[in-house]
């Protein structure tokens, strides 16, 4: 089975641990790179093939509140680049505010996951199922 490539953009290491545990629990096979903020993520994406990742990630899990460059700014920057435009971005955040959901929708994200992470919570279930589908799809390739 081919692991799914994930770029996690998250500044809180405890959250990184939590996400890993949740993905494990969901039996998702993945390869993960992490960035601590938007800027780092952009550097990693640009540096692909160098010291960074070999190929573009299948999905990005992006926190909203981060230092230097927040999640929304990062997605905006990604959408501006022709070669990154198609990347599947997921928001992963503590905020369940309507404003944030609307802003994410406007940027065309693939899913919205709320912390604390629960695989079967009504707010995050769709996003997790989509990730599992993506993984299954990639395995069949």
């Amino acid at each position: 089975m081919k692991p799914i490539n994930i770029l996690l953009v998250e500044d809180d290491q405890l959250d990184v641990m939590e996400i890993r545990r949740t993905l494990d629990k969901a039996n998702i096979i993945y390869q993960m790179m992490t960035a601590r903020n938007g800027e780092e993520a952009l550097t990693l994406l640009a540096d692909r093939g160098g010291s960074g990742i070999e190929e573009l990630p299948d999905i990005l899990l992006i926190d909203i509140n981060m230092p230097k460059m927040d999640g929304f700014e990062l997605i905006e920057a990604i959408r501006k680049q022709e070669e990154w435009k198609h990347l599947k971005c997921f928001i992963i955040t503590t905020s369940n505010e309507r404003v944030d959901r609307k802003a994410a929708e406007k940027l065309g994200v693939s899913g919205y996951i709320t912390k604390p992470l629960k695989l079967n919570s009504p707010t995050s279930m769709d996003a997790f199922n989509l990730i599992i589908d993506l993984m299954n799809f990639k395995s069949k390739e």
Partner: protein
Amino acid sequence: MKISRYIFLTFFFILLLFSITTYINYRLSQMVVVNEEYLSRSGNIIREAGRFQRNILTMVNGLHGYLLTGERSFIESYDTASVENDSILVELSSLLTDSSQSRLLKEIKQLNDQWTDEYTEPLKQAKILSNVSAKNLDSFNNFYKEKFATGHEQSIQSLLKVKFKRFATHEYEIREANMERLAAAVGKTRKLSLMLIILSILAASAVIRFLVKKISRRLRQMANMANDIAIGNYNVSIKDIGRDELSSLGHSLNHMASELSRNISLLQRSNEELDQYAHVVSHDLKGPLRGIGNVISWIEEDHKEEVTPKVNEYLALIKGRIVRAENLVEGLLSYARIDKEEMEKEITPVNALIGEVLENLPGHEKVSVEVGELPVIHTEKILLFQVFSNLINNAIRYNDKEKREVRIYCKEHKDLYEFFVEDNGMGISEIYHKRIFIIFQTLADRDSYESTGVGLAIVRKILDSKKQDIRLVSQPGLGSIFSFTWPKN
């Protein structure tokens, strides 16, 4: 010019007009009095003149009688009339004011004197002497014939008659002229008084209209301004370039409005900042809290065997406090979120809304909830839901009775509904009635009732944002009645 000066001047002007009217009428009344006096005097004059004329006749008859008969009684009546005429003359000359009449009277007197001198006295003497001798009688008879043959005496008498007639006619003419003058004066006075009164009424009503227009338009403007301020529109001012009392009132109102506007916007800004602050702080608190919770659950999941039962017990305590802290943060967030988001209005049947509220409250099946006939309102459903949810939740939770009862009903007022949530619970002492609406204030200890003290603060904030009131009637042990108002639209 000041309004008070306007009023004073108008009053003074009208007073002046009325004074003139009064003076003119006073003059007229004086004229009437003078005329009255004249009339009575004139009557006297005519009467006395008549008496004088009659006396002359008496004298003529007396003289002739005496001359013919020699009877003394004739000469006596002559003397009486003559004496009386002397006094009448004195009185008449004192009564007469008209110079031509005086002249006429003088002429009458002269004629009378002439008659007395030429006829009466000589004939009287001759008659007295005629009794002495026959010769004397003859000479008297001759003298008598001689005197009356000429007819001169007759012409004096008829001249006297003419003069008397003229005297009377002239007197009547004067009287007529006086009456005419008086009538003209009365007419003139009436016309003038009427004109002055009309003028005063016109002047008064013109000035009153001017003042009312000047005042009422501006008062209306001020009333509108006050209404604007009352509904929260502070950016209003009155343009008034006058320099009277109302203008200074207008300036004060403008000043008040601008101060209000400034203070309100300061207040709004600090409220917004406070909400922003609460939002950011509570949001940032959520992360670490969740982190701690995560670590504890990982310990429980992966290392259950390695920790002692005591540690497990402590971990459970920590988890409990994390839940409490998260509830507080969540409460603070929802408190700060009120009136942040634009709410859409929808048709809300309140009975159905209460049903939804109860479905979301665990344990409501054990409570007897009696819901009255409630209206259907076009309003922000979510806000009304939150208000009812918090009130009903409290009514159910803080109830130590065997049989818990909650009653929900409504009273309709002109522009709003008044909703009641009544319970038979523990009740609240009056000293806490204010305090319970302050955020994070609770009356029950947190260990027995996991209460954040946010619910009623949220209720209060929602009602404040809609400019509505909440009231509480409650006594310890006697249950509570919370009532709040909600606009119909």
